[in-house]
């Protein structure tokens, strides 16, 4: 067997994230054009990379139809103006799409099949409402393979509150307020401007520029959140305020073999240490990152104490709270989501993974004492994903 090669993360960017509503930023913008924007920005920021050296383009979308339907990796490569010799493909693991694109590309690099791979994800949830065009197999319910609630992500979040009755709505709201505050601070400090590429978008009111996340509400208070309705269950705990809204957004990143990056003078920001996917009960899909985290740490022979930074997706506040329970850290741990999370910026399903990676890479720069970091998220139908990274920005 070929000797495995080191895989490094060079750089990653995203579009601003918009509301998936008819008056959202991207309502009249194509999903693949958003992905193209992110890809071109990655290349612009890394001019040392000759585009013909890109060996593959791996793009994720959950809804692989319409403007996300044409084998995205290849579609985006061609539309971005990459040489026609650069191939591409599409992947889907729902919310872990971009993470799966990354680990698929990393596999190619590790095996010596590729030196440079562009990875990313896009989800235009305005054009493709969740579950649209999906034909659920009736056996799921008839044979009780999954609980009915497993198909509705908000209901799985209510289920988490049931499973952990001591995680209250108040806890979830407090977490959400903090996420909004941290994200607002990150924007104020210019941190997000390094990750988010503005994009001009056509709207009914003419062209404008999507430069800032539309969901961002740094002034959110506990009082304001307390009065929101609970759409998934009468008297429930999950609200629009303590969960991520339906979002349009795209992300892209460049990963490479450590040697190939070194040869052309690209400075890697992180080294991929390992990754794990795990399955859980679909109606408790939010628990997925717990076994995925345990698995990747065990394989790397590390413990939670060794990890300096966590970037964990926040589809629902209770999902992060239950992850904290499962891995034994507090939700106010300063290592966790230092720049806020999806509750503040939104969660365009398959695109989110690279957002986590880009924020982790930025966090490593701010926290040179942090040696390892983890990107993790939960996945519909009861799964979790975790990638473990090592900080390469602490020797400079």
């Amino acid at each position, binding site marked *: 067997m070929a000797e495995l090669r080191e895989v490094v993360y060079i750089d990653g960017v995203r579009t601003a994230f918009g509301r998936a509503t008819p008056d959202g930023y991207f309502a009249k913008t194509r999903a693949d054009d958003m992905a193209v*924007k992110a890809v071109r920005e990655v290349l612009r920021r890394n001019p040392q990379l000759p585009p013909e050296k890109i060996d593959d383009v791996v793009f994720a979308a959950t809804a692989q139809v319409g403007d996300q339907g044409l084998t995205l990796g290849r579609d985006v490569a061609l*539309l971005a*103006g990459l040489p026609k010799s650069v191939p591409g493909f599409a992947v889907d693991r729902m919310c872990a799409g971009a993470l799966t694109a990354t680990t698929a590309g990393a596999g190619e690099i590790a095996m010596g099949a590729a030196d440079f791979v562009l990875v990313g994800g896009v989800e235009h949830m305005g054009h493709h409402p969740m579950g649209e065009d999906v034909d659920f197999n009736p056996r799921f319910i008839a044979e009780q393979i999954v609980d009915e609630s497993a198909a509705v992500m908000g209901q799985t979040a209510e289920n988490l509150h049931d499973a952990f009755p001591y995680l209250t709505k108040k806890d979830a709201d407090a977490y959400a307020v903090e996420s909004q505050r941290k994200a607002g601070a990150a924007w104020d400090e210019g941190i997000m401007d390094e990750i988010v590429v503005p*994009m001009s978008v056509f709207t009914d*009111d*003419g*062209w*404008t520029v999507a430069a800032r996340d539309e969901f961002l509400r740094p002034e959110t208070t506990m009082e304001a959140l307390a009065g929101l309705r609970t759409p998934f269950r009468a008297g429930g705990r999950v609200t629009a305020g303590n969960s991520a809204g339906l979002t349009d957004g795209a992300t892209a990143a460049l990963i490479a073999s450590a040697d190939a990056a070194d040869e052309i003078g690209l400075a890697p920001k992180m080294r991929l240490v390992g990754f794990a996917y795990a399955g859980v009960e679909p109606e408790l899909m939010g628990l997925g990152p717990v076994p995925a985290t345990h698995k990747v740490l065990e394989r790397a022979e590390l413990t939670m104490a060794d990890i300096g930074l966590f970037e964990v997706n926040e589809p629902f506040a209770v999902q992060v709270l239950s992850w904290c329970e499962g891995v034994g850290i507090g939700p106010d741990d300063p290592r966790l989501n230092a720049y806020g999370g999806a509750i503040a910026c939104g969660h365009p399903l398959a695109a989110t993974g690279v957002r986590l990676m880009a924020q982790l890479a930025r966090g490593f720069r701010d926290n040179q004492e942090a040696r390892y970091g983890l990107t993790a998220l939960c996945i519909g139908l009861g799964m979790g994903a975790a990638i473990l990274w090592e900080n390469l920005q602490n020797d400079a």
Partner: protein
Amino acid sequence: MPSPPTQFKLRRIESPAGHIALVTMDNGEDWTKPNTFGEHALRSLEDVLEQLGTPDWRGLLLTGKPFVFAVGADIEEFGEITPERARLGGAAGHELFGRIRELPFITLAAINGAALGGGVEIALHCDYRTISSSVRHFACPEVLLGLIPGWGGTQVIPQLIGAERAVKFIVENPLRQNRMLSAQQAFEAGFADELLEPVEFLDESLAMLIQKIEAGVGKRRPRADLSDVAEVCRKARARLDGQVHGAARAPTGRSI
């Protein structure tokens, strides 16, 4: 069916260089019904110019809805036109386009799609121009219709690209099966400062405007050397008289 009137839609963009006015010409239809300038459009432009009168603006970017810049005066209105209305329309265009020229901050037209007649003229009243390499229709076809580019075209075009090229563009091309310029040709003729790829055309045009504001580049009024204008027109008239034998009268009646 007449197209709905084109509107000038103003959005305020925050940029490192301050507030940018991003103005889109849009009639709310897709590219098969291009933007045109009729009375409603001119009134809409007037509204936007009012809003641009406040002191906080640092620059203006003028562009069109996707795939179309603007294709000039609204031909639908011509049916009911009288000499008096023609004069008023001409004067209104002079006044409004003149106000664009006189805006106290720098202006850039991002020619993203078809630009014909008044569409070309409004772009030329801006200080700078970018053009998308995908543009295939850039022309002043008025002369083919027995008109002249009446919103300043006969003045600003020669001042920008010289008499020889201007006569070719305004007079000779329309009379040669209404020949139009591609983006590449328009750029080479001197109509645009930058020829940009379509993929990020507006983002790059905006970046160029911001960069010019930050660099302190001022407004611009090109003045080509027009000492040869009489000679160029005399030769062109002789050539055209030989071709059209008086069939197209508007262009050859008077020198520009």
